């Protein structure tokens, strides 16, 4: 077994989970990943049945054809059975993505599908539908010198703390081109797609930070960048909608806890709809507009005022 630290958890694993940060002492693991046998047909008494995904209380089974079958239980165990000839890169992506997402749900943590960037003493989360530019924005902030806490999965506990994931950004070829990053020196995350793993050498923040707010990225056909803050109860729905794989929550029987966690968080953070032109805008302008919007919110202590 190898030991890693990510999302505030110690993870023991039969499989190499690089780029997660390694631990050199065998601490007690919060989550253990085993290579083993996983049912070909699913769970014994599932409460929620999809063609390739089944759930019961604290149990979750899913199968990605040609890659692997996964069995996730009690928020602390993942068993993975790769298909013959499947590549370990692909298996690892599912372990660090969908599987950990399910583990967090089983542990009653709130998971937002988005990135977390450090602004002063707080974390700001950028969420939104796939293809709306979340990763591009995180990479652009990183390039500008901001610390990154998380790419893709922002995990938040009941105290409203966002946990660091691991020091890597995943970039599509187009994003790399936009940011002037040469992908010749990077590894593809899988051979089948033009998406690359970019290690964050400096600029990864590895301690939890309180969440200041959430931007929900959208696009429109107009030419302007628009910030529309949500107020009061309006903040709750977008927060709920940005939850990672929210469709699974009913199946997991976690719905009331999840709604409570969303309400609690909504009371303490800003939620702003950020709409950008779908084409023909400058990334720099978007970044500056966000910086200005955040400074107006006056929720964040500036970096220089922080004590270590």
């Amino acid at each position, binding site marked *: 077994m190898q030991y890693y630290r990510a999302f505030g958890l110690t993870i023991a694993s039969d499989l190499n989970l690089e780029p997660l940060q390694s631990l050199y002492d065998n601490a007690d693991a919060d989550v253990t990943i085993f290579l083993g046998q996983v049912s*070909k*047909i699913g769970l014994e008494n599932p409460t929620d049945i*999809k*063609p*390739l*995904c089944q759930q019961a209380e604290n149990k979750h089974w*899913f*199968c*990605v*054809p*040609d890659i692997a*079958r996964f069995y996730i239980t009690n928020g602390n165990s993942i068993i993975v059975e790769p*298909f*013959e000839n499947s590549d370990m890169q692909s298996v690892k*992506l*599912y372990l660090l*993505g*969908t599987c950990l997402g399910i583990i967090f749900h089983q542990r009653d943590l709130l998971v937002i599908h988005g990135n977390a960037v450090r602004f002063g003493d707080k974390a700001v989360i950028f969420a939104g*539908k*796939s*293809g*709306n530019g979340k990763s591009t924005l995180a990479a652009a902030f990183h390039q500008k010198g901001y610390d990154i806490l998380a790419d893709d999965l922002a995990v938040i506990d009941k105290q409203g703390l966002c946990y660091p994931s691991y020091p890597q950004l995943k970039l*599509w*070829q*187009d*994003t790399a*081109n936009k940011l002037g990053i040469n992908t010749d020196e990077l590894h593809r*995350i*899988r051979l*089948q*797609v*033009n*998406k690359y793993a970019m290690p964050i050498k400096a600029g990864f923040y590895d301690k939890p930070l309180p969440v200041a707010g959430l931007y929900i990225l959208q696009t*429109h*056909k*107009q030419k302007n960048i628009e910030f529309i803050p949500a107020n009061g109860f309006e903040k709750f729905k977008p927060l709920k909608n940005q939850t990672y*794989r929210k*469709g*699974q929550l009913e199946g997991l029987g976690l719905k009331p806890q999840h709604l409570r966690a969303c309400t609690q968080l909504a009371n303490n953070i800003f939620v702003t709809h950020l709409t950008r032109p*779908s*084409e*023909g805008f400058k990334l720099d302008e978007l970044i500056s507009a966000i910086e200005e919007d955040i400074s107006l919110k006056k929720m964040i202590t500036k970096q220089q005022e922080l004590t270590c």
Partner: protein
Amino acid sequence: MKPSVNEQSKIFWLASYPKSGNTWTRIFIANLMSAAGPIDINQINTGDIASSRDWVEQALGFDINELSHDEIDKLRPLAYQYLSQHSDAIGYHKVHDAYSYVGNIKSNIGELSSKTNKQALFPNSATRGGLYLVRNPLDVVISFAHHSGWAIDTTINNMGNSQQTFYGGSNRLFNQLRQHLYSWSEHAQSWLDAPFDNKLFVRYEDMKLRPFATFTKMAKFLELPSDEVSVKRAVNNSEIKQLQAQEEANMFKEKSNQAERFFRKGIVGDWQEILTPRQVNQIINDHGRLMTHFGYLDDDKKHIY
């Protein structure tokens, strides 16, 4: 004989090549389902587009963002089967994909496998019926050129290209999945050959020139109210002038970035003013057989619309 209807399935596919009346049809359906005045064109929700990444992913229950187009294609039939059988109500789902066949998933996931190595992208088990909208390719060319920001000649070439796709790029993520369009003729032929019974082919020209009879037939086929009052009201509320006025007041969200507006002319026979004889000939060379099949050319190759 009335074709058999798969009552378990809740999906009607609204299939068409681009720029052939699909949006108009969905606006008509939305108006038919609503008792109020003209429906807001930005609020039409008759069902997700078949290529919606979120819709497909919701049925699979795991991330598909880091799978290739071909890998995702293999999973789409299972997703549609699930979505069709787990919907509360019948849905009307836009499709620009050709009726195509995709690779099968590996056999070692037990019962889910099939013995053949190809499966239909839109399996019969997911399909209640398919309405195919077809429009004279001479007019499609002009509308498609405006929509895409392409020159007419480029559009003609693309409409003759068997490899043509929507969202086929591999260097970024799109909120729609890749769609194989094939050529205009191959697209139409693929749906003509689709192996299910409950199909209706409707011409854009008939929707335009014989609206009441045509939309009544469509409403009946789609198991929607088809009485005279309902159909007339929905047809009037979906008139091009009405749609243009709405677009004038508020941008239409389905307009492409390249186009000035979505609801442009919406007329029959615009090609006679726009296309050169050489362009007309090329389209007839490429698509003459299917144009004759759908009644756009008579047996002497004379134009009907």
